[in-house]
């Protein structure tokens, strides 16, 4: 593919002192049984930025993402080596309380998965179990979360309707609101717009720009244009290894590794 096909990159400000490290990954390897999905991954995710992880299918980027909130624990035979430091503390240690961790590190999945409840109850689910708010405080929290997810205007009159009444794009924003309601510090997004139509996708991307003012965002995407559009830093994964990591402007215009360049210009993947 000709070089002119390289995606346009908005001039995102690079990492500055305003963005201290939030998550430091040191020598992370992940196994499903005997299969090694990740090998010695090392990178730093900075606070209140959007970090994108790209790579071909099966390269391990989703596995990496799921390690950050210990969601791999629910998979039989999954294990890890190395360390992942959240604010300096290793979350991979066995005595870490994953319930508390997952409040701080939330996840939005590829396909919207709203609960079979009302819109209000969906968003209120997290705050209720963690005891974050009750009564009118809870209503305020739900409203606030829906506003932050850019969904409030569309659902404010139908909070007691079933979440399944919403369109796909709206359901995904509902899932985002649901995560925001537990007041996380980090929001992980696993291909959040891949199941959505282009218009919904753009709205989610706009949303990400707003969200990054308050939250640290890590997104996995197979859509390079999207990664180039929204992210501040990007990591390229291939076969379970992290090949290259750095400011998105550099990765997409002047990658250091030939493999990165091949992927970006569409020679494979």
């Amino acid at each position, binding site marked *: 593919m000709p070089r002119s096909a390289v995606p346009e990159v908005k001039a995102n400000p690079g990492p500055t002192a305003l963005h201290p490290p939030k998550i430091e990954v040191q020598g992370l390897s992940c196994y499903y049984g005997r299969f090694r999905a990740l090998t010695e991954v090392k990178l730093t995710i900075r606070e209140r930025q959007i970090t994108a992880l790209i790579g071909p299918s099966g390269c391990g980027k989703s596995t990496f993402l799921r390690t950050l909130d210990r969601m791999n624990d629910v998979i039989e035979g999954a294990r890890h080596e190395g360390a992942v430091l959240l604010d300096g*503390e290793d979350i991979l240690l066995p005595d*870490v309380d994953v319930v*508390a961790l997952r409040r701080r590190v939330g996840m939005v999945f590829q396909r919207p998965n709203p609960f079979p409840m009302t819109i209000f109850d969906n968003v209120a689910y997290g705050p209720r*179990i963690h005891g974050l708010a009750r009564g009118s405080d809870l209503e305020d929290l739900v409203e606030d979360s829906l506003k932050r997810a850019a969904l409030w205007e569309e659902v404010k009159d139908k909070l007691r309707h079933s979440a399944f009444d919403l369109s796909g794009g709206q359901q995904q924003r509902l899932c985002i609101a649901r995560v925001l309601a537990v007041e996380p510090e980090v929001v992980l997004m696993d291909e959040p717009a891949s199941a959505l139509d282009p218009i919904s996708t753009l709205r989610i991307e706009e949303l990400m720009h707003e969200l990054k003012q308050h939250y640290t965002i890590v997104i996995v995407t197979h859509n390079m244009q999207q990664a180039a559009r929204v992210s501040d830093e990007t990591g390229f994964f291939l076969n379970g290894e992290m090949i290259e990591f750095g400011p998105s402007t550099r990765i997409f215009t002047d990658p250091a590794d030939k493999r990165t360049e091949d992927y970006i210009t569409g020679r494979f993947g």
Partner: protein
Amino acid sequence: MTAQAKAPSLRLARRKAANGLMWGGAVLATLAALVPLGLILYYVAAQGISSLNLAFFTQLPKPVGESGGGMANAVVGSLILVGLASLVGLPIGLLGGIYLAEFGNNRLGWAIRFAADVLSGVPSIVIGMFVLALVVIPMHGVSAVAGGCALGLMMVPIAMRTTEELVRLVPMSLREGSLALGATHWRTIVKVVMQAAKGGVITGVLLAIARIAGEAAPILFTAGSTQWWNLKVTQGPMSSLPVQIYLYAGSPFEEWHRQAWAAALVLVTMVLLLSIAARYATRGRMRLVR
């Protein structure tokens, strides 16, 4: 994680405790569900084995007061009744199941499926009363045929649904291979599909038999009971193990109670073996029909 305020810790501890309670409750419930099984199997085995002997299978019941004797007529009678029931129930069940699998994706098919499910929920005694009115009264008396009809009716839903599921599981490629060679549809089904589903269909038959072999209510008034030999299937009562157990258990005679336990052991062993065989044969392949 450090940096937790005191109150959140308490709440977290409460949530963990609730989680632990759930685990405990679920495990307890599972044990509670298994204990009766153990108790029943134990008592049937313990009480039955002491009374079970060769005479049980070879001799007729002795008059009250005399010890010994057996239930030969009931054992044979049960076999005859199951055989007759299969003659009634299996054709309807198997052919009906084939219909549902091959032609049944329309409103009629769903109505039939629904009817079969509902039929399987009709109390067995009601089925017995139905056959009583329909067969026994016109025939002026109980008979093995009537009992077979009642039991056969009960086999229909199981046989139908099982056959349908198994025929559906046979891959399209098999059918297409046969049709492409110019075989007629029905030949395809009979020769190819049923061959492929053979094992499963046999399993379904076994399941249906296991279901009805232990039934007493439907044959109480249709096949009746007797202490003698009667091999005339269209005339006169036919004794069976389940009914004998019922009658003996309700009697005041110790000896008969012992015989009842022996009969229960035979019945339970047979039914359990059939069920285990059926379950083993279909493990993982299909959902067992209820």
